[in-house]
């Protein structure tokens, strides 16, 4: 029984880290219909900025996180204006080509600027160490990640379902031409959504850095994981992404515990099964 609890706790923590990093991708893919393979690259940029701020400049963790989020947005917005705008509505394969190209560039630049070694983001004393849950201990930063995940989910839900911006966004997604006719400035809506998605990526990159360490190949190494999580959840759905992260996190964790030598089989077979049963993602949203 204790083992079950233990796995559940690990699964929750892992799933929430995945969620924080992937949810931004769900926004770009689901709401903006861009297969954005460069998502991991933006998360990585966030990680690098935070690492630089906290380790080399000696700034506090909170400040580093803020810098990472806004710094990444500042870097990403020109990219959106120059490059992404050209591929809205383009065929998927064209988007794949463009975003892989962007990823390659970012990797090369990161490698040049920061070198090939691992970069860490020093945690504040409050997040270091472990918390005793009675039956086991868990790293404090994982609890922090869980809380981050929950607040991101809540904030996004509020933004999309309850604010004027959310209304415009949903309108632009359902029918861009109609929304434009009604006076919604779709390109601004898109730019803002993109900035939000990138900001979330950066936040995820920083919060998840303890699990997925920052290095130049981060952008490619975890690309598939993010893509799988988002698609299984159903792109564009917050609840879908949340369920997918917890489910896949659970499957992965349980697989690694019970049959580590077949962990990969376990995970990918589950993915195939889920996609076959829910071809439109767990949230069941049509495209």
């Amino acid at each position, binding site marked *: 029984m204790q083992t079950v609890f233990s796995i559940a706790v*690990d699964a929750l923590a*892992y799933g929430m*880290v995945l969620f924080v990093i992937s949810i931004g991708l769900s926004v770009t893919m689901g709401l903006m219909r861009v297969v954005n393979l460069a998502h991991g690259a933006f998360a990585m940029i966030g990680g690098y900025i935070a690492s630089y701020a906290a380790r080399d400049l000696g700034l506090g963790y909170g400040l580093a996180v803020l810098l990472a989020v806004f710094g990444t947005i500042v870097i990403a917005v020109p990219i959106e204006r120059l490059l992404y705008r050209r591929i809205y509505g383009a065929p998927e394969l064209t988007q794949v080509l463009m975003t892989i190209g962007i990823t390659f560039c970012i990797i090369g630049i990161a490698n040049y600027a920061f070198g090939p*070694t691992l970069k*860490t983001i020093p945690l504040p004393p409050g997040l270091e160490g472990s918390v005793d849950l009675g039956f086991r201990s868990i790293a404090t930063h994982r609890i922090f990640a869980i809380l981050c995940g929950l607040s991101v989910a809540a904030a996004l839900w509020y933004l999309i379902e309850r604010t004027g911006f959310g209304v415009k966004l949903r309108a632009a997604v359902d029918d861009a031409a109609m929304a434009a006719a009604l006076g919604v400035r779709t390109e601004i809506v898109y730019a803002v959504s993109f900035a939000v998605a990138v900001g979330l990526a950066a936040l995820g990159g920083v919060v998840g850095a303890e699990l997925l*360490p920052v290095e130049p190949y981060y952008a490619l190494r975890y690309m598939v994981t993010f893509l799988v999580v988002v698609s299984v959840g159903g792109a564009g759905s917050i609840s879908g992404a949340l369920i997918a992260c917890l489910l896949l996190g659970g499957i992965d964790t349980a697989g690694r515990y019970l049959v580590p030598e077949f*962990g990969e089989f376990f995970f990918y077979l589950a993915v195939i099964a889920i996609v076959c049963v829910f071809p439109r993602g767990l949230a069941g949203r049509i495209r």
Partner: protein
Amino acid sequence: MKRTIIAALAALTIGGAAQADTIKIGVIGPFSGPFALQGKNFKAGIDAYMALNGSKVGDDDIEVIYRDVPQPDPAQSKALAQELVVKEGVQYLAGFYFTPDAMAVTPLLEQANVPLVIMNAATSAIVTKSPLVVRTSFTLWQTSTPIAKVAKDAGVSKVISVVSDYGPGVDAENAFKTGFEAAGGQIVEAIRMPLATNDFSPIMQRIKDSGAEGVFAFLPSGPTTLGFVKAFNENGLKDAGIKFFAPGDLTQESDLPALGDAALGIQTTFHYAVSHDSPENKTFVEAAGKAIGNPAELSFPSVGAYDGMHVVYKMIEATGGEQDAQKAVDAVKGLAWTSPRGPVSIDPESRHITQNIYLREVTKAEDGSYYNKEITTFEKQGDPGLAALK
């Protein structure tokens, strides 16, 4: 098809190809991609050797030609080796970070009349694939066997083995198991986890549940190591007094700054520590540090490359610059010298390097940096893996 032509000496001589007294050495390694750091170390070791020993052997100029295979890709590796031999006319092949890349090249050697000096790839069997292979690095059997004795001597009798599920991981597991069981210890469980494991918490739970007093671990150096060591501490295994044993790949110097305090106290056995205290090593570290640019990036492949160059130089000396692979290899059988890592020799039978293996512990230096502090020396270790092959 990533390749790099860096004429170590003379871009001049490329034009005058007919010049007979330039001897070319083709080096294949990961110079880009996720393992670029290791390739950089190859180059640093080679540059250091040539800086210290000159770029001439007798009258012959030495030219090193680099080719890039970023990730294990035997087909690519073989194609590049073929190109090096046929097009560039190299007389020696060297380098090779990954085992499959080296394996792919061995069938070529005889026809090409070219010896192969392996500077890293660490699977025992490679040297058996061709009589023209010499290795100056290590094997996982070589580095993982002594740690079994260390574990037993530390009073640990039940150990769980946790390795990444690929060739080197399996080698490490077998080596440790053989050594530990021979010493009277018991392997309570042997876990092989997928290479692409991000979250190690469930593995830590397994370790905890197994009731082992110690854990033997092997993962490829890089991002996963960091996650593993952190998870070990955060899940309370360190506090629970579970001992951590591993071959030195886990605490390679270039990863130590990132690992930080988390790695303190981890004991590993390995053939080389950058901090090794000897005049030879001081000279080497200084030269190699200059070659690599940032001395913090220096790691074990550099010494394999450095000694590999030594072997190649000796081969050239012995053959007088003539292309005769068998003669060259025969000349270095039994060759002994003092390497930056300590006294070493080439075993005449296996053509693998015999060397000291050191037990080290990750320690914080006075200036706040971390290093592998050598504690015990296991002298003149051969490769037990070859015996296991038979």
